[in-house]
């Protein structure tokens, strides 16, 4: 799983039937410091509670299909949870 920030909501006009009940959000992947890292992508929202500005963590590939309810819809990226806080241990703690 990787961190991401929701940067927008995708409103489809036409969609395959299998995806019709799936909220789609536009995500900017983040590195572990919270800086943008890589190209934006569209994630299905398994939590159905994420919104623009929210930090989330997401999975890709087959695991994405499992994150949703109803499960096993044809998606390649999905949000698994919303991030309250990322705790980075201090370098003294890690020494």
């Amino acid at each position, binding site marked *: *799983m*990787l961190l991401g920030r929701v940067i927008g909501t995708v409103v489809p006009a036409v969609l395959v039937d299998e995806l019709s009940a799936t909220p789609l959000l536009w995500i900017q992947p983040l590195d572990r410091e919270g800086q943008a890292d890589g190209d934006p992508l569209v994630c299905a929202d*398994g*939590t159905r509670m994420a919104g623009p500005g929210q930090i989330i963590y997401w999975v890709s590939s087959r*695991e994405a299909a499992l994150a949703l309810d109803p499960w096993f819809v044809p998606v390649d990226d999905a949000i698994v*949870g919303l991030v309250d806080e990322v705790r*980075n*241990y201090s370098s003294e703690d890690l020494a």
Partner: protein
Amino acid sequence: MILARITGSVVSTIHHSIVDGKKLLLAERLDQDGKPTGGYLIAMDAIGAGQGETVLILDEGSGARQILDDDKAPIRSIVVGIVDGLYGA
């Protein structure tokens, strides 16, 4: 499996039910000298790994689901071992 170092954790209240009661760890990938490569991943803890520890992470979905004993778990990365030592050739 990959070698990584636990450098943080992710706190989450709203999440998929499989994450309930589980710890999500921020793991920094390590190169062959044991230095961070700059890459990271968020892995679920299966064995009680903690800060600063070098761990073995299984980064494959079917194996993770087997460990979690849930064939619908949307989890790919799971901490499966704590490394005591690494000895290069």
